[in-house]
């Protein structure tokens, strides 16, 4: 009796192990690639950020510096902290604008009207530009600006309403309205996919119960979309953070090939930047997690 129970247990363990094994086998190619080209380089760059890296014939020479690179970034560098703060202010304004804009557009695109396939395609098209050459050439041509900012001299007006410190940020965001439009393609797509997960029968039910479209948006669509909103917020933050024309990243890259600062210092800058964004993302995740939990408790 006992032995058969043991047997069953062993068999269960064997089964479990086999399942684990399959899982790991499927993961293996990805894990190997990831370790080689993502995990190890990232670890390496942590190590480098604590060193002064010098290029000598036949390789690199590392001089252990402790936290000096990190200290220098804030105390000696007179560009990095300012750029970091300005960019973060801009991001904090841009992210909600992009997400709300995408939500509105997606809501409208979700309506039934003739030719909506075409419109959906058109709104996603700008994402194609978002990579590399084409975008930067458009910027060189000045296609990213909108002329009315200068024409109507909006800057004093903005300064008057939001105060001197934020005026620059607000103007920066206004100047990038076109970019916001272009950058919301993926978010719109995610929202549209999200709307498909809400079953139409719910809408029918509330319509029979006498709810207006306005009510059904606030009571059904929006709560059901919370996970997609959080996904979009994360996506937008990451998208802006790794944006190729981002001034902070440019500063980091410039430092990488300077002789007196070198790769160690630029790694340290990158890690500071990474730390800031990580805190921001953790905050966003925590907020959404909490709101989901309270919703679950209430329902």
């Amino acid at each position: 009796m006992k032995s058969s129970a043991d047997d069953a247990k062993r068999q269960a363990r064997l089964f479990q192990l086999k399942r684990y094994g399959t899982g790991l086998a499927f993961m293996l190619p990805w894990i190997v690639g990831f370790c080689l080209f993502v995990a190890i380089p990232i670890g390496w760059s942590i190590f480098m950020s604590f060193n002064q890296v010098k290029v000598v014939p036949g390789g690199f020479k590392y001089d252990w510096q402790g936290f000096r690179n990190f200290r220098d970034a804030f105390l000696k560098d007179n560009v990095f902290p300012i750029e970091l703060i300005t960019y973060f202010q801009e991001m904090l304004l841009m992210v909600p604008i992009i997400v709300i804009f995408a939500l509105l557009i997606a809501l409208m695109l979700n309506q039934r009207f003739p030719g909506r396939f075409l419109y959906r395609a058109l709104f996603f098209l700008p994402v194609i530009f978002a990579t590399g050459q084409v975008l930067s050439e458009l910027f060189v041509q000045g296609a990213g600006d909108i002329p009315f900012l200068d024409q109507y001299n909006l800057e004093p007006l903005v300064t008057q309403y939001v105060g001197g410190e934020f005026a620059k940020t607000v103007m920066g965001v206004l100047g990038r309205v076109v970019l916001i439009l272009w950058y919301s393609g993926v978010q719109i797509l995610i929202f549209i996919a999200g709307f498909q997960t809400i079953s139409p029968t719910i809408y029918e039910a509330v319509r029979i119960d006498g709810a207006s479209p306005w009510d059904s948006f606030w009571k059904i669509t929006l709560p059901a979309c919370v996970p997609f909103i959080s996904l979009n917020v994360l996506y937008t933050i990451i998208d802006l953070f790794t944006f190729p024309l981002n001034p902070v990243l440019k500063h980091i890259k410039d430092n990488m090939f300077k002789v007196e600062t070198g790769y160690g210092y630029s790694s340290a800058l990158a890690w500071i930047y990474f730390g800031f964004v990580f805190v921001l993302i953790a905050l966003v995740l925590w907020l959404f997690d909490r709101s989901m939990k309270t919703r679950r408790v209430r329902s």
Partner: protein
Amino acid sequence: MIRRLRTIPPFQYVLVTAFTLLAAFMSLPIVFILNHAFKPQNELFLFPPRFFVQHPTARNFESLFLHAANATVPFTRYLFNSLVVAGLTLASVIVVSTMAAYVLAKYNFHFKQLILATITLSLMFAPETVSIPRYLIISGLHLNDTYFGHILPALASPVAVFMLVGFISQIPGELVEAARIDGASHFGIFVRMVLPLSVPAIATISIFTFQGVWGDVETSTLFMQDETMRTLAFYVNSLLSGLQNSVSGQNMAAAAGLLMFVPNLIIFLLFQRKVLETMIHSGIK
């Protein structure tokens, strides 16, 4: 037809008009790129700049191809490299990421939570900052001047896995269980069920991956020392940066801009139907 039009409520008229305006605004850059590439030299420098081309000409493309033909490496070689690299990367990223995402979404195994956390973390890390350690690894593995040097760094894409995990976990677990009871192997389930069901997500990541690979100059700049192994993106990039202030090359730059953009558009048009269609008609919630 008229009766159909009459049944459309007035709200939809407003909607369609608003969308047409917005869409027209969004498509401006496409129109601009298209027109710019066909402008003759004298129109490129008109001030104020014109949006539409007056006398379209194919001279720009001609001079681009001729310029490349005179160089040591013919233009077609860059094109061939780009096609090979983009095709192979796309295929391998799809296979590797779907496999990984499938087990992450549907199986339990050691370190699963750790792997998921690392994926989310590494999403935030800008690839530029790890380029030098990557170079050291590539040259350590002797992958310089091979196609592997182009493909392998892009292989383990955290973004692709991140998106696929979200999608595949929506496939009902009962469906997978049922297939297992009916005697399907792990691999069979993956090929026959998970792959077809996740076509929309795969289409989406294909668009992203293709754009990333097609426009990537990093692998060509850092890992390839042999000019014959470099890609079209690198060629166009070096052409553009060499011409920054010169007047004579602007027409080539305009043509090259269109050339870099068109494949993206084609891939997008190919996959976009799939993305939108399957998103709506997919039987699973």
